[in-house]
């Protein structure tokens, strides 16, 4: 079992733990903000007199903390860990990772302060003010140094699917951020073109950055835990290139029915349909996760199912006939939660459950907290997405009927928004327990004279619920 903990694990634990801990603190922060935003949806008087905590700002704060705080930090940590492990040597340029992480998190903090003071941009997934984006860009580049050196200097020339997705995420985020910054902030395009660029960025942030970060974890952990080769692996490269080439073209689906040239949504419809090939390949390759045990695989299999359902729903709602019923309702929010929480976050949770005992050399502090986190997270996500979908169905029916006053629509959706609030409470509780367990486990390495506790193979995995 000694071979399971590689030199990368022990020698690169500090930057990786810094990234992961930062991510978890942002996860709890964003959970609290998301809970407040959901509360304000059905009880708008809550903090209505406090300008920095009105609904528009709180929802932008929650989204920014979640994407740039939690997903970015945790995704980068796992991407670096995977690239380092596959390179066959300890991660290099670790000081650059530490510096980059520090400045990244300072920039995210600055972004939240800016958003709270009213500088939110209003663009989906890019609510952070323009003045922090250059710092984010440079910090990301500093963190990426280590990953790209591990990628380019790998001892074995063969590259695996987890390699491709991790390296793609490292390479592509600076590209999409620089284009979005220049075209929306430095030298902004005008009028409807802004909506096109913003839609493109939002979709690329998902398809070319966050999804590859999650998939790289899944492609790495699933064969490791199951101990089997990935089935139909020869298709994995096709699936990867399909995502890279087609993923960026799906942004127009957000603009369906808008005042944009008709070819933009049409291309998005075709791209969404083509992207189903990628989704099919992912499902084909990773279907082994449904037969394995352990909490890491449970999270990852949930993430894969959410990813597949999300892609199918994206394709379906890109058609005009369906979008007529789903646009401008809570359905968009449900789709976003399914992708960001249901797919990306659960895959990262799975990756952390697999990686942390190897990074620290210690087993998870509490099996009970692991089980509680699994139940609360998966239950919370299901409840959140289901309640938002039900609210969107009612909202869509009411919006289609001109006789229904707006106040009645709010009243009809009220019970489902209460359910969404309960789901956010559950998710926040799960995040708190996970963070506590993580901190407790990470603190075990402070006692360096303590015997390593990971030798029994069963201790390497989080306890099976």
């Amino acid at each position, binding site marked *: 079992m000694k071979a399971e903990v590689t030199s990368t694990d022990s020698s690169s634990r500090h930057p990786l733990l810094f990234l992961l801990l930062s991510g978890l603190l942002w996860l709890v922060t964003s959970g609290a903000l998301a809970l407040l935003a959901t509360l304000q949806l059905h009880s708008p008087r809550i903090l209505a007199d406090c300008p920095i905590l009105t609904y528009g700002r709180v929802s932008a704060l929650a989204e920014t903390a979640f994407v740039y705080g939690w997903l970015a930090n945790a995704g980068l940590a796992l991407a670096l860990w995977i690239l380092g492990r596959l390179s066959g040597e300890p*991660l290099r340029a670790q000081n650059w990772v530490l510096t980059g992480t520090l400045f990244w998190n300072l920039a995210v903090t600055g972004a939240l302060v800016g958003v709270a003071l009213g500088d939110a941009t209003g663009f989906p997934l890019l609510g952070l003010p323009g003045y922090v984006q250059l710092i984010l860009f440079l910090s990301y580049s500093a963190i990426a140094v280590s990953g790209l050196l591990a990628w380019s200097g790998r001892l074995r020339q063969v590259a695996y699917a987890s390699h491709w997705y991790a390296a793609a995420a490292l390479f592509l985020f600076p590209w999409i951020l620089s284009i979005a910054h220049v075209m929306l902030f430095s030298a902004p395009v005008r009028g409807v073109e802004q909506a096109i660029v913003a839609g493109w960025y939002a979709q690329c942030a998902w398809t070319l950055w966050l999804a590859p970060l999650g998939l790289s974890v899944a492609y790495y952990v699933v064969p490791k835990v199951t101990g089997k080769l990935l089935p139909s692996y020869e298709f994995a490269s096709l699936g990867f290139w399909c995502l890279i080439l087609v993923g960026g073209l799906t942004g127009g689906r957000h603009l369906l029915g808008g005042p944009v040239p008709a070819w933009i949504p049409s291309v998005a419809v075709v791209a969404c349909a083509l992207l189903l090939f990628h989704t099919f390949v992912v499902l084909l390759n990773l279907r082994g996760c449904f037969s394995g045990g352990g909490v890491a695989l449970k999270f990852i299999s949930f993430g894969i199912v959410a990813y597949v359902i999300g892609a199918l729903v994206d394709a379906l709602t890109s058609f005009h006939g369906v979008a007529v019923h789903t646009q401008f309702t809570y359905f968009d929010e449900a789709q976003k939660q399914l992708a960001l929480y249901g797919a990306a976050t659960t895959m990262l949770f799975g990756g952390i459950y697999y990686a942390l005992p190897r990074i620290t050399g210690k087993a998870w502090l509490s099996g009970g907290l692991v089980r509680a986190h699994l139940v609360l997270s998966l239950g919370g996500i299901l409840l959140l997405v289901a309640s938002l979908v039900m609210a969107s169905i009612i909202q869509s029916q009411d919006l289609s009927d001109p006789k229904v006053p707006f106040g009645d629509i709010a009243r009809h959706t009220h019970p489902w928004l209460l359910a969404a609030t309960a789901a956010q409470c559950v998710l926040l509780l799960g995040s708190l327990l996970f963070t506590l367990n993580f901190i407790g486990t990470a603190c075990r390495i402070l006692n360096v004279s303590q015997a390593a506790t990971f030798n029994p193979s069963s201790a390497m995995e989080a306890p099976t619920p």
Partner: protein
Amino acid sequence: MTEEPAPLPRPVSLVAIAAVFILMSAYWALTVRVYVPHRAPAPQNQTPDNLPKDQAWRATPATRRAYLEDLRQREATQSGKYGWVDRKAGVVQLPIERAMELIVQEHGGAK
């Protein structure tokens, strides 16, 4: 049992780090280089085609600025000096302050 000392990572040259930053910055530079020069001008900065002669002043920001300055100068002259507007009809221009006094006198406001 204590943990074995972790192996040290290989050192990294500054050139390699600079190369990564240059690679990342290339995206930014490329976007600026390709997009900014070809960016469509704002509607107020666009030169309209086929303007009639009396509307020629609308052509560019410079001509609009010149027209505005000329207009303000003419207005300042008209509102501050005496002169004939139409000698035949007996219409004159006079400074605004004097015109205001005359209006007040005409309507019996002066005591």
